[in-house]
């Protein structure tokens, strides 16, 4: 596998997620699409850390190890924060469902535009 193919997979998943966030009616599906976007970023970050030493960079063992670690640490932080985000999102969806018996974002339109 080359870096390009992994990056293309990441970009495609990101685009699918963005489409889902902007087009889906159910708040749960929107949160799932958001998760897709975050995971696309994770794929990209890990791919960069695995494959890419940017041109002209010092490729000693230390520098490479650091480069490798940074991308993976980035991914771990993103996974953790995304989990918190979804937990909060689902809690708010439940609050909305209790007051209105619907989880569709298109029905959340009490305010004027």
């Amino acid at each position, binding site marked *: 596998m080359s870096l390009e193919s992994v990056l293309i997979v990441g970009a495609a998943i*990101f685009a699918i*997620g*963005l489409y889902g*966030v902007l087009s889906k009616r159910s*708040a749960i599906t*929107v*949160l799932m699409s*958001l998760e897709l*976007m*975050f995971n*696309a*970023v994770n794929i*990209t*970050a890990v791919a*960069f850390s695995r494959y*890419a*030493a*940017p*041109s*002209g*960079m010092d490729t000693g063992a230390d520098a490479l190890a650091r*480069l490798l670690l*940074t*991308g993976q*640490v*980035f991914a771990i*932080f*993103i996974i953790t*924060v995304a989990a*918190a*985000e979804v937990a*909060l*999102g689902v809690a*708010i*969806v439940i*609050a*909305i469902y209790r*007051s*209105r018996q619907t989880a569709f*974002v298109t029905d*959340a*339109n*009490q*305010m*004027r*535009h």
Partner: protein
Amino acid sequence: MTSHDIYLLSPELATAGLAGLLLLVDLVIRRKGWLAPAAVLGLAAPLAFTILLWLDLDAGRSLASDGILSESFVVDRFSLFFKFLLIGSAAVVMLMSGGYARQVQRFESAFYALALFSTSGMMLLASSVELVTIYVSLELTALPIAALAAFLADGRSSESGLKFLILSGISSALLLYGMVLVYGFTGATVLSEVGARIVDIGLDDGLPFGSYALLFGVVLIIAGFGFKITAFPFQMWAPDVYEGAPTSITAFLSVASKAAGFAVIMRVFYVAFPIEALAIEWSAIFAALAALSMTVGNLVAIAQSNIKRMLAYSTIAHAGYLMVGLAAAAVRVETPQADVGPSGSLFYLGGYAVTNLAAFAAVVAVSRRTGTDELGSFAGLGRRAPLLAAALAFAMVSLTGAPPTVGFMAKIYIFGAAVNAGLAWLAIVGVLNSVVSAYYYLRVVRVMVLSAPRDETPIRPPLPVGLALFITTAGVLAFGVYPAPLIQFARAAVSVLL
């Protein structure tokens, strides 16, 4: 982590610690009256640490970390300026929060704790100099605000919280994608290393931004931060979120969250995308976004009849004025007064903070009483509560940018910086926009003075809200008459970036 590192982090730790303490003590003590005063007075601790750190810098002591913070966190005058601003805004916001926090009885302490956690995230954001740290601080800022926006648990409040959460999630995803592209291109996440690597790698003159990776990276990063500061075209979440959230949280979002957003934008663009290599590109982007934000915000604000929605569009316009300073900053090489652009943005932020908090404190005082945010409910306020009406009118004058208020001084300063940087057209757009904005700001004054009140009962704001209103209005007047200290403060703060 050494004790020196803990000292460097002490303002943030004290803020987060105060939040945890409120939650814990609340479990033991049954009466709740102490919560609000404790939350406000407790902020004296982070304030004291921030002052100590500032005095250390004045005395020339080194505040560089020798431990694990060395690459991700920095204490300098720039970040301390924002910490003062954030602690002050948080204190004022909590003064006006009483009514909303008590509305959901069992969770009163959670309200203050969430606001404090968010404040600590903003303070971290002002000090972060590494992409992963910036991302985590940004989420620490945003997630508690989403919970607070949904705090009242009625339909509008939950809706506002969900909208904020989803849109801030989208913006985080875009920002992260941009950050990862920059990381892939440069192999670094520490801002100064990113900047150095961009210069090392060299840019291709034929391409925008010198490389497609940087083009996409920078555009996505601007989009992500654009959400946080409600810049056009990423502003569409603001009106709904502002309207549905508790008003004190709306004030928090429009002042503190925006200040932290500007802090991190300035840090990222000055350090990671160095002026020598990329100045013209990002100056042009910020100039265009500034002009569009001002115009869109002001034009749509005219049509609003709900005062919170109107103030939401007004904050979009003010994000535009603030970005004038960023656009002006990039041309510093040719001008003798190098720091007027960025220090203008900081000065404007300080002035905008006191003004907007004053306006929102007045709105809280009225809407807690009348139960609505419609402009009509302000009718005859001049008779029902003369002092309150005078303070709100004064805040509106300051938002318009007329003397003798800090809004006037800030606009003069920031538009002067634009002219100085050869962006005279942007200054003209800004002045024209200020004239347009006078229409809807002064309409509030007209309604308060000329319209007949629906009922004549006088409105007496609760003591904490009155105190918040008094402090902020005094700030608007004091810095309007004598802005020199705030300007000096802002110039000292930006000197580390240049």
